[in-house]
């Protein structure tokens, strides 16, 4: 086992797969010589050559389209979209092509592409370097949508993504690259060496899609979340002293029904938290699943804490961010209900 931060884990997953399978290749803006603006592909071109790891023109559409085409010819491409905020120009290739190809061709063709993209705020990136658009993709059937919250999961899930024969969008909460973030920007930041999920095997391992992780077991309330918010929720739970069960979904599509339903059936209370804007976000789907499946066990309304329905404002980053305060307030409301 090695100590890795999330970037190192992501780099390690890619390196592991480049070594294991010569069909794996990496393409994207600045991913080659430079190793990516976040350095998630650092050193890979030097090691594996430009035939395996290379820069592309600044065309997210072209990157995804080329990756799809390459996959049809037997490769297993990993495409980096520099920021999730810049994935929209590729939306047609993702939603109309990658997601539907297997179905429309009666199973004759399919694409295995993995799209890695950093998401989320908290790095003073302003409205075009902070978005969490996962809720747009979870409504598109035919793709897997993944968002890990720690280095161990990031590596294991990314390996599963690369090995998957279906298209995967792999969202990387960039605020977590260097350490867990507990939602308090004024506190000194800590590294992944302080967290047990910062221990990451060097070699190959994988984590199946569709299995949530229970990061804290509890009896009084179920909190369902993913990405950066997993850690922020931890802080909020500590603030309230409530014995909450925290479910880190990790895999949004496919989703782990059992973990969600079993937990809420046990606790009778549920809170959903994500960083993306609230209306129409993936939280609405989670809430709906809980409501549909656990209605008779619910002792209080399920609540959602999410980003406000505004673009991510540069100067009001922490006012936008659904921090521990807003979450603990919601926890208290639910417990008192």
């Amino acid at each position, binding site marked *: 086992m090695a100590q890795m931060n999330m970037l190192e884990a992501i780099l390690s997953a890619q390196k592991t797969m480049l070594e294991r399978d010569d069909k794996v290749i990496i393409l994207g803006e600045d991913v080659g010589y430079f190793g990516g603006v976040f350095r998630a592909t650092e050193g890979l071109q030097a090691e594996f050559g430009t035939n395996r790891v290379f820069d592309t023109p600044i065309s997210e559409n072209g990157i995804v389209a080329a990756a*799809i085409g390459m996959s*049809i*010819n037997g490769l297993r491409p990993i495409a980096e979209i520099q920021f999730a905020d810049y994935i929209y120009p590729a939306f047609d290739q993702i939603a109309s092509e990658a997601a539907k190809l297997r179905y429309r061709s009666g199973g004759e063709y399919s694409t295995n592409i993995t799209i890695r993209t950093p998401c989320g705020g908290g790095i003073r990136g302003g409205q075009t370097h902070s978005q969490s658009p996962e809720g747009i993709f979870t409504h598109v059937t035919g793709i897997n949508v993944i968002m890990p919250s720690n280095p161990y999961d990031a590596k294991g899930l990314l390996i599963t993504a690369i090995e998957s024969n279906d298209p995967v969008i792999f969202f990387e909460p960039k605020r977590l690259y260097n350490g867990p973030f507990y939602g308090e920007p004024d506190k000194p930041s800590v590294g992944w060496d302080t967290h047990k999920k910062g221990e990451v095997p060097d070699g190959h391992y994988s984590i199946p899609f569709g299995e949530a992780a229970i990061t804290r077991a509890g009896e009084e309330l179920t909190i369902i979340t993913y990405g950066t918010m997993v850690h922020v929720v931890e802080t909020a739970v500590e603030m309230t002293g409530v014995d909450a069960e925290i479910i880190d979904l990790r895999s949004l599509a496919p989703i782990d029904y059992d973990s969600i339903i079993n937990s809420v059936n046990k606790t009778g209370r549920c809170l959903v938290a994500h960083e993306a804007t609230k209306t129409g976000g993936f939280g609405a789907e989670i809430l709906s699943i809980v409501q549909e499946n656990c209605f008779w066990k619910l002792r209080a309304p399920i609540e959602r804490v999410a980003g406000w329905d505004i673009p991510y404002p540069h100067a009001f980053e922490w006012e936008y961010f659904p921090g521990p305060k807003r979450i603990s307030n919601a926890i208290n409301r639910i417990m008192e209900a």
Partner: protein
Amino acid sequence: MAKNQNQFSGGNSLNQLYVPQPTARPDGFNDFSHLHIPDVEQAACPAIDCSPHDMRDLAYGLIRVLDDDGNAKGNWNCKIEPQRLLQGLKDMLLTRMFDERMQTMHRVGKISFYMKCTGEEAISVAHAAAINFEDMVFPSYRNQGILLARGCNLVDMMCQCLSNARDNCKGRQLPIMYSWKKGNFFSISGNLATQFSQAVGWAMAEAQQGGNRLATTFVGDGSTAELDFHSALNFAATYSPPVILNITNNQWAISTNQVIAGGEKTTFAARGIGFGLPSLRVDGNDFLAVYAATKWAADRARAGLGATVIEYFTYRVAPHSTSDDPSAYRPKNEEALWPLGDPIERLKTHLINLNEWSEEQHNILIEEIKIKLKKNYKQAESYGTLKTGDRPDVTTMFEDVYEDMTLNLRRQRQEMGL
């Protein structure tokens, strides 16, 4: 290409937005006299490793081999064996008659939709003849000629159109949205142009793996405006993969004339020049010219010299689809006056000139194809039509969304009672 292509036209002197217009609408008359059709001898045929910069004229001219009398001439005449030409004639005829048969089946309510490629048969058929079966095709919806030239099973094609129990797309796609993996023919998309950039990716992977196959892909004049066209040319220019980027300029995109696609002031082949790619403009109704241009581009690709852009100049004789009636937006007589003629007639004349074919043989061939189509169609129909309602097994409806059916979809399938 308009006569005034080299002169500036268009502008806003009238204090209103300049909106280009086609030569004529239904109330007008278009004999294409504004077109300048260059002589067969005119276009030079450069070596495949010629600098794209030095062959830019080819994007503005018109590569032709068959002259008006059906004789093969000029620098692009690559002297194809008559057997090959004959096969081409048969495939073109099959394509046209297949279209007619299916159009009829739509009229009588057996299929929900159809798209013909009448007048454009040479493009698909000659292109297919000039590349290898192993080469990967990323088609548009008007490339049925490639399927037929590659020998796709007629019953299979018909079953796809019928969405019946034998449809290999399992009833999931509109008629004509074929997929034929064994024939190296990519699944047709309803979203215009997406295949163009995917083809470039496929070709990049071919280079990456050191293979010797090429990718070839088609879009219409109208679809060149889509984003994937730009991505395709850009990636092709950057990585020089073995790909042929074909533009079928049939002058219409539903009701919209190619002048609106940015075809008024230059050619579509010229788009390739913008990226420093070798770019050919070809008489799309001339089987020999299409063959020669394709061959040139294929040789170039296989020599590791990268992508070629080819515009085929043709005319969409058919309506856009069975949902369309062109008499609402263009003069009824246009195709009759279209100066590049009918690709089948032209090749037929050529073969007759060569003493390789006769009117009689042609008529026999027509009868043979009729019988073949009839027989095959009968078989296809036996697996069901829109009317009989024989469809793929409905339980397959939830399959192939993912490689393995998700729990969510299993639940939904259950909910449906399947």
